[in-house]
């Protein structure tokens, strides 16, 4: 089945290097990393088989991925099983637990206004006014080094569907391998639905947006940091995107407090292959409100903060980056002695 339907784009070895790949925009998925954009599972985790079957069945609107819903479901599962052989992640990990989609509350003027404020703080640096024209838009790249243009949310179709729950899942799970983070650890379901309502409003009534008054943004209270915590500020301004300072030295048991100073949303994500062996579990335990493996919450508003505790970790160097701004060189390191 893979040879019949998939090799022309995804290549016989699943590397996304099929014959028509150079002409495809976006480029076909490289299956070898086990990174899948469209899932119901938390950011960074593997998708469920149902997630993959949804993509295979419905296709991805606006791309070369057509809908294969007509094919016998058994055949689609055969293809998915074969795709899972391309990445060792499928042998070593289980898919994440799907994020539940609560019942959609009614869309009101208030929810749209709240969504607009949240959108301005959390989304506009990439999505701009909704049409994908944010200041970072042209600089974004995906995990494969390809330019990654933010979605134009004012269009009547987006890749995975235009239902509210589709948009909700994209917000909460993010898109693995892209600068689009998952907001599950940083947004409550109500606030996520507010953004959904705003995006739906963008698409249906763009002319009425001027009449919507954004509600005031405020920093989300976070748990107090230990008194000996070291602070790293997250900054995005005319000088660029960076952690200040970008390198700190601490002791085992100490904590680091990351504060969104300007230019958010920011987050902190540790590279799992650049931390000492065996440190992943205690480090994960020391992070607050994670939205995926070694992935901290998105800090949307200025003043939002999150603390990472280094209790029980092994000494060594811990390299980290800001997921939305990695392509802009926003990364740093913590040396634990």
């Amino acid at each position: 089945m893979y040879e019949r339907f998939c090799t022309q784009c995804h290549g016989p070895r699943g590397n996304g290097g099929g014959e028509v790949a150079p002409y495809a925009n976006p480029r076909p998925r490289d299956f070898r990393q086990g990174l899948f954009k469209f899932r119901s599972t938390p950011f960074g985790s593997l998708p469920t088989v149902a997630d993959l079957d949804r993509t295979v069945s419905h296709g991805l609107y606006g791309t070369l991925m057509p809908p294969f819903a007509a094919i016998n479901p058994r055949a689609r599962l055969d293809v998915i099983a074969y795709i899972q052989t391309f990445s060792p992640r499928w042998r070593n990990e289980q898919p994440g637990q799907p994020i539940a989609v609560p019942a959609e509350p009614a869309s009101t003027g208030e929810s749209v206004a709240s969504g607009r404020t949240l959108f301005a703080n959390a989304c506009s640096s990439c999505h701009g006014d909704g049409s994908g024209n944010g200041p970072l838009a042209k600089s974004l790249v995906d995990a494969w080094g390809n330019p990654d243009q933010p979605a134009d949310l004012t269009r009547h179709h987006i890749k995975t569907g235009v239902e509210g729950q589709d948009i909700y899942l994209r917000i909460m799970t993010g898109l693995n391998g892209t600068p689009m983070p998952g907001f599950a650890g940083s947004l409550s379901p109500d606030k996520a639905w507010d953004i959904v309502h705003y995006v739906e409003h963008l698409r249906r009534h763009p002319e009425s947006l001027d009449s919507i008054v954004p509600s005031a943004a405020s920093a989300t209270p976070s748990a107090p940091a230990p008194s000996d915590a070291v602070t790293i500020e997250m900054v995005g301004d005319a000088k660029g995107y960076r952690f200040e300072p970008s390198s700190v030295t601490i002791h085992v048991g100490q904590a680091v407090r990351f504060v969104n100073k300007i230019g958010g949303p920011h987050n902190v994500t540790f590279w799992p292959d650049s931390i000492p062996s065996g440190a992943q579990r205690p480090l994960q335990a020391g992070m607050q409100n994670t939205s995926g493996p070694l992935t901290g919450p998105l800090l949307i508003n200025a003043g939002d903060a999150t603390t990472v505790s280094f209790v029980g970790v092994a000494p060594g160097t811990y390299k980290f980056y800001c997921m939305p701004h990695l392509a802009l060189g926003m990364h740093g390191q913590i040396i634990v002695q």
Partner: protein
Amino acid sequence: MTRLQRLLLALTLFAIARPAYGIPAFARKYGLKCSACHEAVPLLNVLGRAFRDNGYRFNNGKDDAINTDPSYWPIFAWVEENYQYNYSKSDKKTELNDGQLSPGFAIVGAMGSLGEHISFNVRPISYFGGISFDAAWIRYNRLFNTDALNVRVGQIDLDMPIATAGERDFTVNDFVGNLRSLSYTVPGSRGFDLLGNPLGVELTGHDPGSVNRYALTFFTNSAVASHQLWNSPSVYGRVSHLFQVPGGFLRDVEVGAFGTYATVSLGPDSARLKSQERYGASLDFWLASDALPLHVEAIAFQGRDDKNLIAGATRDALYDGGDIQIDYVPALPFELFARYNLVRNVTQAVPGQPGSFGDQSIYLFGIQHMESLTSRFEWGWQLHYSLQYDHLNMSVDGTNNLQHVVWAGLILAF
């Protein structure tokens, strides 16, 4: 058979036959292999049938020319050459024993969609230096924004059972006729060919995945002379349902029923409209694997021609027809195929004719290789053998007639 007879036979067969291949323009447009939509070219698989039913659209935002690469044009071309060896023998003597290289044919066509609602196909065919239209239609998709109603107008292919919809061999000139019982002509009657791409208006509808489908076509009978085109109102219909089996060796099953009531005008008033009817059912099932399927299609039908269409007849001609076709893909891009067609006359229109007069049995076996070298070019070859046995074939010398054909062809598609 004299040279003149051979030439007339060849010209007749060229005129009635039609090709059916994969459309390389679609492979280019969507970046897919031919095998994505074809079990084996030209036989459509379930995805290809759903694509066709949607007006040759995937509805994935890449259907419209404005959303495709500027280098894409909905134009395609086929070029074919073949060699054919014929051995024909009646009860009394050998009628034909020779082989020849066909001058082949070329088709340059345009097929695709314009916007959400309009699809089109213009397919002129060139052979022997002449040009005719194999198909030329325009289709309005999703009338009233529902898949349940689509309208197609022009010279169209009737919605036949799956394996019947595409001719099984590469050539436009099945030398022994169409090798299809559905194209059978009652001796002495007007030829009526359900595979003849008549002029008409077609209404079709389907649900997602084309599980349930219908087609209703109002057309002019291809058996009548051109000046009578609009005096021979005819109708064809077909319904089908696809079962997708959840487990086991059996994968999919499709059942269908079809029928046509065609008329021929023998005079200036409607009272002189005489009918030709065909009613039948089809059963398709797929075994083993969706990737390398074993596809079996069985068709059974009954035909009736009005006695007024048959010289010397005192009653309507009635016959049973059918075929069983097997298509098997042992490994891409190879295909093995076999077909058995039969026609058995039930009621002879002319009294005194033997009961088996005009009966027909046709066996066909072959192998095909069709491969995409790039998304812009495919090539293939086919080798097949057919054996046709005509009972009391009056076209030769009034005795039984046996014809062997070995056919080898090469096609290039762009």
